[in-house]
């Protein structure tokens, strides 16, 4: 009865309770049933055509991918149900979450196959859109990781991105130089981060309140300046946009090339930040100290680490990341600023950070997933599945709440996250 599987993962001992094991299995079986329902709504001979070259690009072309929808869905449904049954019966132990991810992935794939059956869908174009939609989410999530790992909650990512988007557009337009615009965007966001730091580290006010101050303030200021200047004088709201930069050789690889190596500067910044932050946080002395401050500031202080300086630095870096994420809106994609244009991307970033368990790699994966959900949502209307786009747009938030509730494994929040440090 009480047979618990013990999983040792990075020296953390995690016990998978029988309830969780069965719940996971039942979720997998239900997803299998869902795939079966997709299968029931297709007919033999229907073919889903996935186009593997994004529109308007000639480098890295690949042939279209033709999938017989009927048989593929049946096979996937049976496979998923079997995986679910094995999970209920025996459990996959340490591989449980991996199997679950695979099952979820198969479900998404089946859904796309069903939606595309008898039609054609530009899959790589959709993935490319997903990555671009994921950029501000992922950079926002990195912003959250940096500050929260040092014990400062940052719900002001949204506000920082909004301000950076506005300043980027304004300065970019005035100087007619996107690089100066990007720099100004980063500085404006770091300035807000500094205010967040002073309020929450120096004055020790509740970090949620401090974040709310920043959010209300930047919503107010960016809309104020936008209404007063940017919308009135169009020359102030017409910044140059960073062009697509193909990387030699790599850009010609089919599928991967168009997705990662023939794209926007911001995608490259995102990929480099991912590696740098992941390595810096988990493999350097600097990162160890930063995390120590977030987990147990008193112990860190006793060992001679300057808790306040570390936290200020983390918050400023957090502002830097949010600034790049914000600049993406005006300098990386749209080319003009509109009031409240971040539309909650900062909060999805926060969600991605939680979903990604406060790690850069996890946040990256979660951000890609959320971006993917976003791009599926826009494609849904085109494919005419009858599912309202708003429900797809809700998915990231709902998934985050499920993760937070510990249904599919609880995240590890830094222990001192949100607690001001009092030096004795």
């Amino acid at each position, binding site marked *: 009865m009480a047979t618990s599987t013990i999983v040792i993962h990075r020296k953390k001992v995690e016990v998978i309770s029988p309830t969780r094991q069965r719940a996971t299995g039942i979720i997998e079986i239900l997803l299998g049933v869902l795939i079966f329902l997709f299968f029931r709504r297709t007919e033999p001979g229907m073919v889903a055509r996935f186009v593997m070259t994004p529109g308007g690009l000639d480098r890295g072309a690949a042939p279209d991918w033709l999938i017989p929808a009927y048989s593929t869905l049946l096979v996937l449904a049976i496979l998923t149900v079997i995986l679910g049954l094995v999970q209920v019966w025996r459990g996959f132990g340490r591989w449980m979450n991996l199997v679950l991810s695979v099952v979820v992935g198969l479900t998404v794939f089946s859904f796309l196959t069903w939606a595309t059956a008898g039609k054609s869908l530009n899959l790589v174009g959709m993935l490319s859109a997903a990555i671009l939609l994921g950029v501000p989410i992922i950079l926002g999530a990195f912003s959250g990781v940096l500050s929260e790992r040092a014990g400062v*909650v940052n*719900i002001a990512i949204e506000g920082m991105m909004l301000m950076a988007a506005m300043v980027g557009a304004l300065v970019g337009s005035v100087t007619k130089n996107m690089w100066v615009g990007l720099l100004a965007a980063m500085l404006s966001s770091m300035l807000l981060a500094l205010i967040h730091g002073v*309020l929450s580290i120096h*004055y020790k*006010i*509740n*970090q*949620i*309140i*401090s974040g*709310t*101050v*920043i*959010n*209300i*303030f930047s*919503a*107010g*200021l960016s*809309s*104020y*300046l936008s*209404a*007063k*200047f940017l919308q009135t004088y169009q020359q102030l709201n017409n910044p140059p946009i960073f062009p697509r930069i193909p990387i030699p050789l790599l850009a010609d690889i089919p599928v991967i090339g168009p997705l990662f190596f023939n794209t926007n500067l911001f995608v490259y910044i995102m990929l480099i930040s991912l590696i740098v932050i992941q390595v810096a946080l988990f493999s350097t002395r600097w990162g160890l100290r930063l995390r120590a401050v977030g987990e147990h500031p008193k112990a860190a202080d006793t060992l001679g680490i300057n808790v306040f300086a570390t936290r200020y630095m983390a918050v400023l870096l957090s502002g830097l990341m949010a600034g790049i994420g914000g600049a993406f809106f005006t300098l990386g994609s749209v080319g003009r600023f509109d009031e409240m244009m971040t539309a*909650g991307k900062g*909060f*999805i970033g*926060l*969600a991605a950070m*939680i979903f990604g368990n406060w790690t850069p790699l996890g946040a990256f994966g979660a951000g890609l997933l959320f971006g993917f959900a976003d791009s599926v949502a826009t494609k849904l209307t085109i494919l005419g599945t009858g599912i*309202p786009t*708003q*429900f797809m*747009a*809700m998915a990231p*938030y*709902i998934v*985050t*709440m499920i993760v*937070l*509730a*510990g249904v599919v494994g609880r995240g590890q*929040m*830094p*222990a*001192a*996250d*949100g*607690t*001001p440090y009092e030096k004795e």
Partner: protein
Amino acid sequence: MSENKPKQDAGKVFLEEVTGQSEEAQRIKGWRKTGRTLVVPLLAIFTGLVFGAIFIVVTSEDVYAAFRVSFGSGMATVWKTIIQSYQALFTGALGDPARIISALQSGNPLEIRRAVNPILESLVNATPYIFAGLAVALGFRSGLFNIGVEGQLFIGAAAATAVGIFVKGLPQIIHAPLAFLAGALGGALWGFIPGWLKAKTGAHEVINTIMMNWIAFRLTEWLLSGPLTRPGSGGLPISPIIEKSAEIPQFFPPPIRFHLGFFIALAFAYAVHWLLFKTTWGFDLRTVGANPNAAKYAGMNITKNIVLAMTLSGALAGMAGANQILAVNRSMALGLSPGYGFDSIALALLGNSTPMGVVLASLLFGALRNGATRMELLYIPNDIISIIQALILAFVAAPAIIRTIYRIRVPKEAEEAVFTGSWGGGNK
């Protein structure tokens, strides 16, 4: 109720330990304390307005043009801009005193109504703030940070709209309260979910309410373009106009929008005061908020209190939305709220999380929002109010800034923290 008696006494002891004072001592110090507690909020408001003036001047093209002429004319224009802006804010919020006096002398009722309309309109603006502020304050008192008031407000508005549209043939005396109740229930549901999740799984209410906000926005977006859409709106996300019988009555013919909802809000402010400070339930809520461990050892049911607090808080937020639909807008659109939910965090803090304080702060914020419409005529976007509100929030939350600016001595006893919860601390 007799079995609750010893519990209450035990709790009182704990509360004394928490605040470090006996109730007797608190009462004696009452007046001096009131004076002291008012200093920081008043200075915060004043400083916020000063910073607002600086923003207006710095972004005024007239000022730069005048400085190009000469320094003297520049300074004169600076002064003139500030006076003009705040005069517009004042007359926009409270009416033109000269006009009110002459209207009163003429005795013409129509003219009187027109002259005092700005004040009434400020009260109309204050009403959703009162509901939303009470929602946040109730949460703070119970040790919970309900940052999801905005979402609860939207769900409440949607529920009230649905009842206002689809229920037909009821008399107003039943239909309007029913729609209002639906709004409260909608908000309550949206508060219950994060409350329940916090109590059962320890998931932090701040993250969950943020997520619930965005779910609510998307849900209302869908409702307004799907089930609740106005026929013939051409895809615009807007609901049909509610039935006449669902309206909360306005007292005067249009354009004066002053309505019964304001008094309902005041009644709920009193109700929240009564609940928090005169009932055992309220005592439990406050004790759980002030010191969960003490509450636990006193035998209070933490789970029940967390869920109850979040549900009630959500219900109040839902009422804010229902009020806007039933009394003011009469139909629902996405631009329902200019951020009532987030501003209400500022005013709950400004009002020290007491219902009376929330009402006063709401009157101020309502007046500011209303006055800002007059400032727009001077080409000052009304977003200036958000800037001022953010600054007021920062100053109220960090009184030390105000003390530094005005060189006020720190009071002898340690300051009563308005809200001391932490992100990680609340978790199991």
